[in-house]
C-alpha cells in the first residue's frame, strides 16, 4: 500500500513538472541574458531564475514595444465586455425566466440554437459588416461620424457583449432561486426591475463570478478577431502585440519577458481565486 502511494506521488510530481515546466522556463528565462538561457538548457537551472538575473529584458521590452498601450487596450476591452456582458445577459435571462410574455419559449429555443454557431464561421462576414459601419465618436469635445469600425476599441467589445452561453448560465441559476422571494418583494411594492436588481442579482453572485471569468479569459485571449479588424497600433490588444514582437525579434529573453508580462496577471488572479475558477469550469461543463 505504501509503495503504491509512493509511486502515485512520484507520478504526480513528474506530471507536475511536465505541466509547469514550460511556464517555469518562460518566467526564469525572462530574467536571463540569451547566453545564459542557452548555457542553462541542459540542466535544472533552465527552470530556475539563477545566475546572471536582471530586469534588463523587461526594460528592453518596454522600450521597444508600446506594451503599456496594448495592455491598457486589452484591459479596457475585457473590462467593458465583462461589465456590459453580465448586465445584458443576466437581464435577458431574467426576462426569459421570470417574466411571462408571448414568444419567450421560442426565443429561448432560438438563443440555445445559436450556441452551435462558432465565431470562426462569423468572423469574415462580420469583418465585412463592420468595415463600413458608421460610429459616432467623441473628438475634441465635438461629435464626429466615423465611417468604419476598424481600428477601434468598440469593434472588439460590441460583438462579444451578448453571449448565448452566459444567458443560459444565468437562466439555469435563476431557475433555482425560489419564486417566494419575488412574491415577498412584490408585496412590498417592488417592480420587476427592483426584483431583478435587488433580489435576484445579489443572490446570483456565484454565476456572476463564473460569467466574469469566462468572459474575461475569452476577451483577454482574443486573437483571430483583432487580426482581421485592427491594423494600426492605437487599438491593438496585447495578444497581437506579443505576436508581432515575437515575429520581429531574435532575443529569447525579451520574448519570454513579454510572455511573462502578458500571462502573470491572469495567472496570479487564477492562483488567488483558483477554487472559483475550477468550479466555474466544472459547472459550465456539466450544464453545457
Amino acid at each position, binding site marked *: 500500500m505504501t509503495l503504491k*502511494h509512493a509511486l502515485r506521488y512520484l507520478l*504526480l510530481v513528474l*506530471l*507536475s513538472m511536465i*505541466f*509547469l515546466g*514550460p*511556464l517555469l522556463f*518562460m518566467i526564469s528565462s525572462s530574467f536571463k541574458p540569451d547566453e545564459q538561457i542557452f548555457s542553462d*538548457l*541542459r540542466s535544472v537551472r*533552465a527552470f530556475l531564475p539563477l545566475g546572471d538575473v536582471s530586469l534588463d529584458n523587461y526594460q528592453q521590452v518596454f522600450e521597444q514595444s508600446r506594451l503599456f498601450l496594448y495592455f491598457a487596450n486589452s484591459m479596457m476591452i475585457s473590462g467593458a465586455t465583462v461589465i456590459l456582458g453580465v448586465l*445584458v*445577459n443576466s*437581464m*435577458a435571462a431574467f*426576462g*426569459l425566466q*421570470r*417574466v*411571462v*410574455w*408571448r*414568444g*419567450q419559449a421560442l426565443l429561448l429555443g432560438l*438563443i440555445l440554437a*445559436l450556441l*452551435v454557431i*462558432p465565431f*470562426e464561421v*462569423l468572423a*469574415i*462576414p*462580420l469583418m*465585412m*459588416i463592420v*468595415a463600413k459601419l458608421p460610429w459616432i465618436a467623441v473628438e475634441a469635445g465635438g461629435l464626429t461620424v466615423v465611417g468604419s469600425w476598424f481600428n477601434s476599441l468598440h469593434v472588439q467589445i460590441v*460583438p462579444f457583449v*451578448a453571449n*448565448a452561453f452566459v444567458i443560459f448560465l444565468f437562466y439555469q441559476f435563476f431557475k433555482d432561486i425560489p*419564486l417566494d422571494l419575488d412574491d415577498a418583494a412584490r408585496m412590498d411594492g417592488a417592480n*420587476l426591475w427592483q426584483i*431583478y436588481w435587488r433580489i435576484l442579482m445579489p443572490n446570483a453572485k456565484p454565476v456572476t463570478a463564473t460569467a466574469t471569468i469566462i468572459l474575461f479569459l475569452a476577451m*483577454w485571449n482574443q*486573437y*483571430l478577431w483583432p*487580426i*482581421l479588424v485592427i491594423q494600426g497600433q492605437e487599438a491593438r490588444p496585447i495578444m497581437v502585440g*506579443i*505576436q508581432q514582437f515575437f515575429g520581429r525579434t531574435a532575443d*529569447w529573453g525579451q*520574448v519570454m519577458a513579454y*510572455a511573462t508580462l502578458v500571462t502573470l496577471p*491572469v495567472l496570479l488572479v*487564477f492562483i488567488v481565486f*483558483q477554487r472559483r*475558477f475550477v468550479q466555474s469550469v*466544472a459547472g459550465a*461543463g*456539466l450544464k453545457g
Partner: protein
Amino acid sequence: MSARNDKAGIFFALPALLLLGFSIVLPFVAATVMTLTDQRMLTPNPTEFVGLDNYQRLLSIRVHSVQPLRDDAGAIQRDDEGAIQYSNSPTIQQATNDLPPYQELGIFHFGDSLYAILVRDPIFWQSLINTFLFVLLVVPFQIGAALGLALLVKNPIGGRTAFRTFFFAPVVTSMVVVSIVWAFLYNENSGLINQILGVFAGGVVAINWLGSEALALPAIALMSAWQGAGFQMIIILAGLQSIDEQLYEAARLDGATAWQQFRHVTLPGLRNTLTFVVVTTTIAAFALFVQVDVMTQGGPNDATTTLIYHAVQSGFREQDVAYGASVAVVYFLIVLSIALIQRRVASSSERKR
C-alpha cells in the same frame, strides 16, 4: 408572477436580442449570401451573384487515368527495373477550361493504370486532411491524459489541490503565449525539448519539430493537449465524484480488480461526461488556428494549414472574402453534423432507459 407582461419581457430581453442579431444572426445570413457572390475586400468591380461557383471551386475533384505505354504488339512497356512506362499525356491541367485550373493533389496506381487526383484548390483539400488528422491526434490524447490526471487526483492525497492547480495552470495561459513559448521548446538547435532528449540520449539531438512535414502537426497536437487537458480533467473529476461510492465497494466485495472496477464501474458512470467532453473537444479542435498562425504559418509546405487558417488566408490576406467565407461554411457544416450526431445518439440512449 402569473400576469402576462409582454412589455417587461421585451424590455429585459431586447438589449441581448439586438446584440445577438448584430453579432451572430446578421453575419450568419451574410455568410450564406456572400458565398454565392464574388465579393472581394477592395475592388473597383461591382459584386455579382455567381451561384455555387465558390463551392464548386472548393469541392471540385476528378480522377484522371493515364494508360500505360504499349509497343506495336500491344504489350505494356517497362523500363529496366520493370516499372510500367506511362505516356506523358497532354498535361492534366488542361482537363477542363475551369479557372483556376485543376492541379494534381496526388497520384495512385490501380491495375496497370496510373490515376491522378485533380482538384482546383489543393490547399483546401490539404487543410481538410490536416484538420481531420489534427482532430484524430489531439482528441484521444488530450482526453486520455485528462482522464488519467482526474483518476490520479480523485482520491484524497496530500497536496491534491496543488496538483490540480498545476495541471490547470496552462488552461489559463493564452494560446498565443503557449505557442510562442513552445516554439522555443521545439527549436531545432537550442530548443529545450531536444536538449533534454540529448541529455537522456547522451549526445546531440537535433529534431526539426516544426520544420518537418511529418512532425509539425503532431508537435502542435502535443502542445495543444498539454494546454487543454487540465480543462477536461476538471470536468471529468466532477463526473467521477458523481459516481456512487457504494458501487465501488460492491465491486470490491465481489473481488473485482482495479482494472475491472475501472472498466465496469468508472467508465459506464462517466458515459455522459465523456460524451460531452469528446464532442466539445472535437468541435474546438476543428477550429485550429492560433497555434498554426503563430508557430508555422501553415508550413512547412502546407503540412499544417487548417480549414480556418485557409479561410483567413484567402478571405482576409488574399482579400477573396466570398471564398474565405465559403471555407468557413464548410467548417460549420462539419461542426453542425457532429452536434447533430451527438444529439441523435444522446436521445436514442435516453429512450433505452
